[in-house]
């Protein structure tokens, strides 16, 4: 686990070096476009973490196995972390390129709503521990996923300041290979780092559950 974490950090550092030193500079936006190499990987990790959370929540509701609940909680924490990073890096990219830190654009607003939903999820987990709280959180976690397609399609359905998809589109990525390769490398690096954090978090929850069980049975 520790090795995976060290490997993830090393990959992120290598990815950062590639993005900052070797990737070509975009002709119109210039240097701020390099924020893409952390903004897009953050979104990808957040979406995948939400997918894992949704799947684990559904399996927990079906099988009532606490292991799925622990996975859902760990994935939701990571999702909140990376949605926060998405919003922060987006604001830092928006200021030099659009001239504003924030605008109530459809994609930005739906992403902020997603952040609130899963901060609410974590608050629910903290305030309502136990089986009942876990079931309520699982339902909230699954319902909250309805916001993800809204975020994705908001730039297609509505007129937004945020550009349309340049990577995840049916026709294939619109980026040149010299920018796509470091973007993919950074995404993989972020995924490895997130996987290491997820494994650590699950292991903690498992150890905590085992200790609580022993203490409760000991009276």
């Amino acid at each position, binding site marked *: 686990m520790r090795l995976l974490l060290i490997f993830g950090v090393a990959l992120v550092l290598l990815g950062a070096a590639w993005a900052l030193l070797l990737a070509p500079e975009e002709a119109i936006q210039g240097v701020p476009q390099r924020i893409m190499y952390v903004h897009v990987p953050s979104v990808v990790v957040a979406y995948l973490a939400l997918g894992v959370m949704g799947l684990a929540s559904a399996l927990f509701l079906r099988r009532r196995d606490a292991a799925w609940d622990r996975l859902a909680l760990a994935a939701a924490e990571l999702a909140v972390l990376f949605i926060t990073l998405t919003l922060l890096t987006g604001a830092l990219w928006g200021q030099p390129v659009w001239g504003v830190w924030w605008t109530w654009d459809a994609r930005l607003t739906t992403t902020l709503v997603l952040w609130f939903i899963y901060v609410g999820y974590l608050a629910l987990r903290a305030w309502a521990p136990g089986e009942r709280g876990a079931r309520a959180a699982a339902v909230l976690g699954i319902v909250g996923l309805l916001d993800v397609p809204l975020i994705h399609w908001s730039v297609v359905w509505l007129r937004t300041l945020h550009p349309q998809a340049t990577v995840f589109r049916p026709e294939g990525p619109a980026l040149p290979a010299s920018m796509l390769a470091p973007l993919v490398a950074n995404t993989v690096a972020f995924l490895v780092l997130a996987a290491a954090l997820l494994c650590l978090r699950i292991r*903690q929850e498992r150890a905590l559950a085992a*200790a609580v069980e022993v*203490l409760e049975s000991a009276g």
Partner: protein
Amino acid sequence: MIFVAAAYLAVVVAVGCYALTLRARQGLIRELVDASRPSAADGASMRRGAADPRKVAP
């Protein structure tokens, strides 16, 4: 350039803070795990006077 630096700093701070939270939580869990070990549990029951050998008459 400052915006790019700030974006990378945000990543380092956010992931770093989460990792430190995990580390702090690990310490608390370790204490709980130690407390839940059989010897510690026996010690706890002994402290409650359930099976303290010193209380057995010679």
